[in-house]
């Protein structure tokens, strides 16, 4: 039987969160400063959680890898953040945002969590505006909205093409305020390497100061993991270079279940790969699909000539172009959800209609929008994105259509959490992209920022109290307890082991190899054979890694190769779990597309009878098969249908 208790409150969907808050246990003000909370990560989720908890009076310690909390990966988010404010009066509501998110997630997310997310979405915008986040405004001085994929209303708030930056700076400001007040202590350039359990509860972490190389022990009555997603398992992704899954993976090995790892989002609009020296892929925000039209040539011969540089995009006449999204999905057109758009692009390229020198690209064309709105308007809306494109590709997107191709972008899967965002380890919470909670099998654009801030500002500050209220009698523990020392020794042992392999290949060599396996067999189109092969290849790669890795230098002081080595060791193991999860899920849903399971039109074919569950994996020991636990999903407020964007 399943060990999972999602703790969804009773009552009507719309009343659950209010009821929860009315009946949960709280910590009274004099007790709050006696309780320590560790927050790992300063992205939107971590920074907003730490700032809110600090302001409430808890003593918070926050950790990040970079030199400043403001540099977390969230800073790179471009397009916007959703909220069901219905300011444009186009029919939005909490229910509609909830519905779109569940449908967009292909009916694989938990109803109660998603409803709560939609419910608090408006407060997020209020909070950010109060912090001075300069969202785009119209001439009346009120907030402006744009549209994103998977929605028929305009509910996306934005700050030019730098929404993540502005939201993160807002949260970073709030965090800085609490640091100044002494409620939060910052540990920058510090990487969490393991979790400390005392009598089965999360009580602290072991971190490494990446400047001095020193290992440190930290106590907390509760620990919050907000370390972001695991897209970098694929080596090439739109994630920042330091984005990693090690904190999530280490807590998995300590007993936190890992849910739906195979739900990986491949974003349709990224700059195509251009060389094997490439270190990352750059996203071109989804907001571009508001005004850009996606196409490839109708004729294969034209596509071939373009690939050979005998023809240019602008040589192809209007009637010779195939606007394949508009053709296949007239109702949503270029604004279909990401998984649908990505697969459609791959389908065209696989069929020989791709452009660019590799044939792995499609056009994103602004000519019509420029004609309709003028270059100024397009520049105002997307100027920085166009500039970014030009700097990278050396081509002017106002004159020639952009070339784009899907790339790994976001991970819906993550650490399993209950309604309170608590993992299967008591006292251990997980927020933001690191958890699995709200996006089902596919995330809609502009919903990650919403979720991260919802978790951090409005959910955790409540739910964590329900746990901490039982801990008020627990005094601060000494980090000289045997549990802390033992975990520290384990970490030291792991680092020593990596250093002492003294093989011949660099970390990046293995990481790239892993990336190739993942993209080839665990990417946009998956098959039983391919996935089985991937598992085999990854296991071999793991052996090679632990026998042929070379980490130069030593453990003292700065050693970025050692940092990468611990992360890639974990990526390899997580890669295998992604493949195993994809293998057990004999259906297609959202970002998980099994070629064996598709409709005659090539759409994802779910199997609700057998797979309407959250798949949560339990670690069973080194090289042992993990155990799958199933949390059934029940839909009460929504009628489950095949997704239809036609």
């Amino acid at each position, binding site marked *: 039987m399943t060990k999972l208790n999602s703790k969804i409150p009773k009552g009507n969907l719309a009343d659950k969160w209010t009821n929860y808050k009315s009946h949960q246990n709280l910590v009274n003000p004099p007790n709050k400063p006696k309780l320590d909370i560790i927050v790992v990560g300063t992205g939107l989720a971590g920074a907003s959680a730490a700032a809110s908890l600090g*302001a409430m009076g808890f003593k918070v310690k926050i950790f990040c890898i970079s*030199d400043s909390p403001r*540099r977390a990966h969230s800073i*790179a988010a471009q397009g916007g953040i959703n909220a069901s404010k219905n300011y444009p009066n186009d029919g939005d509501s909490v229910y509609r945002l909830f519905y779109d998110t569940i449908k967009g997630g292909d009916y694989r997310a938990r109803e109660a969590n998603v409803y709560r997310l939609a419910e608090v979405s408006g407060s997020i*915008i209020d909070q950010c505006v109060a912090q001075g986040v300069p969202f785009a*405004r119209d001439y009346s*001085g009120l907030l402006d909205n744009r549209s994103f994929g998977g929605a028929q209303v305009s509910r996306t708030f934005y700050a030019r093409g730098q929404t993540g930056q502005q939201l993160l700076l807002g949260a970073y400001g709030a965090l800085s305020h609490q640091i100044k007040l002494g409620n939060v202590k910052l540990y*920058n350039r510090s990487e969490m390497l393991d979790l400390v359990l005392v009598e089965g509860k999360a009580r602290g972490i072991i971190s490494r100061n990446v400047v001095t190389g020193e290992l440190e022990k930290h106590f907390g009555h509760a620990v919050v993991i907000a370390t972001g997603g695991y897209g970098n398992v694929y080596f090439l992704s739109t994630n920042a*270079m330091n984005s990693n899954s090690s904190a999530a993976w280490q807590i998995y090995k300590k007993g936190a279940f890992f849910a739906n790892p195979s739900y990986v989002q491949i974003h349709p609009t990224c700059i195509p790969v251009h060389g094997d*020296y490439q270190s990352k892929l750059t996203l071109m925000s989804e907001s571009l699909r508001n005004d850009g039209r996606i196409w490839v040539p109708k004729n294969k011969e034209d596509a071939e000539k373009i690939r050979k540089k005998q023809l240019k995009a602008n040589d192809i006449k209007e009637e010779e172009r195939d606007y394949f999204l508009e053709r296949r999905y007239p109702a949503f057109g270029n604004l279909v959800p990401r998984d649908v758009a990505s697969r459609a692009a791959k389908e065209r390229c696989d069929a020989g209609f791709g452009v660019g020198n590799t044939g792995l690209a499609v056009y994103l064309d602004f000519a019509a929008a420029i004609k309709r709105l003028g270059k100024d308007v397009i520049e105002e809306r997307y100027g920085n994105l166009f500039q970014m494109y030009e700097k990278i590709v050396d081509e002017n997107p106002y004159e020639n259509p952009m070339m784009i191709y899907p790339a790994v972008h976001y991970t819906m899967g993550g650490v399993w959490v209950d309604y309170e965002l608590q993992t299967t380890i008591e006292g251990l919470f997980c927020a933001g992209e690191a958890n699995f909670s709200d996006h089902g099998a596919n995330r809609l654009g502009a919903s990650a920022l919403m979720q991260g801030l919802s978790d951090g500002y409005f959910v955790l500050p409540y739910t964590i109290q329900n746990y901490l209220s039982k801990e008020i009698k627990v005094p601060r523990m000494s980090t000289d307890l045997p549990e802390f020392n033992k975990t520290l020794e384990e970490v030291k042992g792991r680092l020593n082991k990596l250093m002492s392999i003294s093989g011949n290949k660099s970390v990046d060599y293995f990481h790239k190899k892993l990336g190739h396996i993942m993209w080839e067999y665990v990417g946009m189109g998956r098959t039983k054979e391919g996935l089985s092969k991937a598992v085999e290849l990854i296991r071999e790669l793991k052996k090679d890694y632990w026998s042929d890795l070379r980490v130069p230098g030593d453990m003292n002081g700065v050693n970025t190769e050692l940092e990468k080595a611990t992360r890639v060791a974990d990526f390899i193991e997580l890669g295998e779990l992604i493949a195993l999860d994809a293998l057990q899920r004999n259906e297609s849903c959202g970002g998980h597309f099994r070629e064996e399971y598709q409709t005659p039109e090539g759409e994802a074919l779910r199997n609700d009878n057998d797979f309407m569950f959250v798949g949560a994996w339990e670690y069973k020991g080194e090289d042992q098969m993990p155990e799958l636990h199933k949390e059934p999903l029940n839909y009460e407020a929504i009628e489950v249908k095949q997704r239809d964007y036609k």
Partner: protein
Amino acid sequence: MDLTLEIWRQENPKAKGKFETYKVQNISPDCSFLEMLDILNESLIDKVQLPINFDHDCREGICGMCSLYINGRPHGPDNEVTTCQLHMRKFKDGDTITIEPWRSKAFPIIKDLMINRNAFDQIIQAGGYISVTTGGVPDANSIPINRNDAELAMDASACIGCGACVSACKNASAMLFVAAKVSQFALLPQGKIEAKDRVKAMVAKMDELGFGNCSNTFACEAECPKKISVSNIARMNREFLCANIS
């Protein structure tokens, strides 16, 4: 392209650093500057040598982590880009390229090209925020803001905190960085309430941390990858004056 690189190597904050010469070959012009350094580092690891340490994260010009002083210019020869957005097509085959860290008393070197910019965080902690806490705030649209002011605030808030302004300034002044934050809030009604205390606290912190004075040569604006305008400095000076008069 084949290139010669003169790179600053320094073991730790206290060690004496020096330039070392490296060669890289067959670099594609489409390669980014940091990818070129990746290639060099891979070759060093192959030879069981220590790779060159430099800071980076997003590699798309927004996190502000990368910070190289290339051929005498912060973020190198291209305009309006960070180091990570610089591409090798901006150089010529056979070039010699000099690569150093930002140099300023307030940004001590950690190792090789990595520097410590905690001073910027400390300036923000001194008052670079609106001190609302979570919850209990008014509806977002109850605070209409003149669109022009909102746009100017956004221009100022586009600062990525990389420190190129300090590195470009002969006095190692942090005026542009501080002014951008002060301006963003001075332009918004939400920020006006604490405006006076904010500017005083931030300026005092900046001085305390050892940044130099502004002598209006505006190298900061010229080298800023986000084109933060020096008009923000004028706005801050006005704010500062007002705060100290009243």
